[in-house]
């Protein structure tokens, strides 16, 4: 009796596994396409776990023209030899190429603040990641509404 019940269970597990395997490749490729930005984040972080929210991303809440959206990235840091921000990375989650720029700072920078202007294809989240001299990472995210998208053509 018992062995018959086991067989049935094994059969059921086998069937579920086969179904999962059959479904997996399609799901995986759909995910790859949708989440290029996640790969861009991983390329920066590796396996490190970033602390949340310490990177200030200043941007307009609503960008009327996605071709030129001003931004400022900053982190509170003494910028000494021992304790400084090594790099600031900017990632746009819904741009055709999510990596926008990497800014590399030095203790000579004095202040971990950079500004420039970016393109935003459409309304999306923007991610700022700071890489610190002690190997830690900080990460923040903010959403920007875009009236007319950039990158188009």
């Amino acid at each position: 009796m018992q062995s018959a019940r086991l067989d049935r269970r094994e059969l059921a597990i086998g069937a579920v596994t086969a179904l999962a395997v059959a479904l997996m490749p399609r799901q995986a490729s759909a995910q790859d396409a949708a989440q290029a930005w996640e790969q861009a984040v991983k390329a920066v972080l590796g396996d490190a776990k970033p602390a949340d929210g310490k990177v200030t991303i200043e941007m307009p809440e609503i960008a009327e023209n996605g071709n030129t959206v001003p931004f400022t990235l900053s982190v509170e840091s003494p910028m000494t030899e021992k304790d400084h921000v090594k790099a600031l990375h900017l990632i746009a989650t819904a741009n055709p190429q999510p990596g926008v720029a990497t800014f590399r700072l030095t203790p000579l920078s004095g202040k971990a603040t950079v500004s420039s202007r970016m393109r935003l294809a459409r309304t999306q989240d923007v991610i700022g990641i700071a890489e610190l001299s002690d190997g830690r990472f900080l990460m923040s995210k903010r959403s920007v509404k875009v009236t007319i998208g950039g990158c188009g053509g």
Partner: protein
Amino acid sequence: MNKPRIKLPDSAKAGDVIEIKTLISHVMETGQRRDPDGKPIPRSIINAFSAKFAGSEVFKTELHPGISANPYLSFFMRVPGPGEFEFTWIEDSGSRVVEKAKLNVVA
């Protein structure tokens, strides 16, 4: 590439943290657009910029097509003493623009 524009403070003291602003004219063609005949327009951007002061590296960046045309950059430096900046912009083609600017360091 055209001559870049650079904005430094009129004067600074050693130890001051100063803002440096640079701007260069460039189309920053993303490679995503098509011309009126439907042919893709090849990518052509400034992909790197660096700033040195008195021979030491202060700041550098890697730029991607998500940076707007006529790339503007603002960044900071703690003035180590008197010296001259050397700014370099590098285009996809490999061509580069180098611009020097002396900082007026006062006692």
